[in-house]
C-alpha cells in the first residue's frame, strides 16, 4: 500500500474551522481540536467555550501579557475576548449538559457508523483512564464533530462498523474531519462529503472500516 498524503494537521483544523458559522458556541477538545481556533478569524464571532469555566476564549496571550489565572481546559494560558464570561464548574457544565453548545470538536480513537465514538480510554490494563469532560461533551453538545487522523498509527481503521474501544458516548457524532476526508455520519452510515486534494474516494474507502456512501 502506498502512503497517501492528505491534509496536514493545520490543514485539517482549517478545513473544519471553515464550517463553523458565526454565532455558534463551540467547545474545542484538548490537542488537535484546539488548533481550530487559530483558523476562525476574530471578526467571525464564534464563542469558544472551555469547560474549566470560560465562554469567549480569545487568542493566546502575547509574550509578557500572560495572566496565570486564565487557562483553558488543556491548561494553556489564554486571553478573553470582549463579551466573555467566567463561571464555576457546575455552571460551565450546565452549558455543555444543558444542550447550549452548538458544537463540540473532539479528538477520537474510533467513530462508528451509528455515531458512537471512543476517545477516552484504550481499555489497556495498568493505564489510569482519564475521562475529563469528554462524556459530558459527547452526550450534551447539540453536534459532535470528531477531528482525527483517518487511520491509527498501527494502520487500523478508525472509522469503523462498531467501536472496539470503550465508548465515550453513543450516537452523537454527526461528522468526522480527517487528514484524508470529510465524512458525515448519517442514519444510513458514513457519507463521504469531500476528499483532501490528491486523495480519491477509493483511497479513502480502502482505509475506512465501513462502507462510504
Amino acid at each position, binding site marked *: 500500500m502506498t502512503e497517501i498524503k492528505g491534509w496536514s494537521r493545520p490543514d485539517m483544523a482549517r478545513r473544519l474551522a471553515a464550517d463553523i458559522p458565526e454565532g455558534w458556541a463551540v467547545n474545542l477538545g484538548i490537542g488537535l481540536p484546539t488548533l481550530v481556533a487559530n483558523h476562525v478569524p476574530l471578526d467571525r*464571532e464564534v464563542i469558544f467555550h472551555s469547560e474549566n469555566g470560560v465562554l469567549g476564549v480569545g487568542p493566546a496571550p502575547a509574550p509578557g501579557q500572560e495572566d496565570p489565572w486564565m487557562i483553558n481546559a488543556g491548561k494553556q494560558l489564554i486571553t478573553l475576548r470582549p*463579551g466573555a464570561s467566567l463561571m464555576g464548574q457546575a455552571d460551565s457544565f450546565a452549558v455543555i449538559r444543558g444542550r447550549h453548545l452548538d458544537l463540540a470538536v473532539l479528538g477520537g480513537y474510533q467513530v462508528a457508523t451509528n455515531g458512537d465514538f471512543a476517545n477516552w480510554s484504550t481499555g489497556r490494563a495498568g493505564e489510569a483512564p482519564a475521562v475529563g469532560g469528554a462524556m459530558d461533551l459527547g452526550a450534551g453538545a447539540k453536534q459532535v464533530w470528531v477531528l482525527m487522523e483517518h487511520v491509527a498509527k498501527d494502520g487500523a481503521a478508525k472509522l469503523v462498523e462498531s467501536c472496539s474501544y470503550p465508548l465515550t458516548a453513543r450516537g452523537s457524532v454527526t461528522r468526522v474531519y480527517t487528514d484524508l476526508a470529510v465524512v458525515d455520519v448519517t442514519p444510513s452510515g458514513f457519507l463521504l462529503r469531500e476528499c483532501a486534494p490528491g486523495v480519491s474516494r477509493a483511497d479513502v474507502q480502502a482505509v475506512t472500516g465501513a462502507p462510504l456512501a
Partner: protein
Amino acid sequence: MIDKFVPSVEAALDGIGDGASLMIGGFGTVGQPDILVDGLIARGLRGLVVIANNAGGDFGGLPKLIEQGAIAKVICSYPRATGKTAFDALLAAGKIELEIVPQGTLAERIRAAGVGVPAFYTPTAAGTALAMGKETRMINGQESVLEYALDADFALVQAWEADRWGNLTYRGTGRNFNPIMAAAARVTIATAHHARPLGALDPEHVMTPGLFVQRVFVAGSAP
C-alpha cells in the same frame, strides 16, 4: 456580528402564539419583565401555560393577562394576593389549572431543565399533599420525592444591564428566578435597563451568559 438587540417589544415577543409555555421572572414586583408582559396582553393570546413564582399576585401585568383569559395553566409556588383576584375566581370556576410547587423545588426544577438534569430527588414535600401521586424513594434514610425538570418555550426575564451578545447582569433582589429561567427556555427574551457595549461587562460578574439569551430589548436607549 452577533447582535441580539431588538428594536421593539413586538420584535422581542415574535413567535409567541396560543398554547405557548412561558416562564416569567421576578419575585414580587422586583425583577419582573413588566414591559414584556404588557406586550403579551396586546397579542390577545389563548391557552398559555405560565410558570412564574407569584402568578396569582396583584402586581404587574400578569393579573391583566389572567383576566383576559389568556392563561390555561399556572405553575407557581405562591398564587396569593392581598385581596381576591381574577385568578381566584377563574380557579374556583375551574377555568384555570393550577400546579402548585414548593418554591425551592420550582427553582430546582427550572434549573434542572437548563443544566440537562432530566429529574432529581428532593426531601422537600415528602409526606405532604404536594407529593401525592409522586414517586418517592428512601435515600440515606430520608424519603425523597422524584421531581422532573421544568422547561418552557419562552422565558421573559428582567435584567439590569445587557450587551449585544446577550450577556446579562441583574440588580439587588431582582436576580431571583431570572438566571435559571434564561437557561431553561428554548427562546429567552430579556428586557434590560441599560445597554452596554460589548466588553463593558466584567467577565467575572456576568450573571447570565449571552449563550442563554436570544433577544434583548432595552427600552428608550440605544446600544
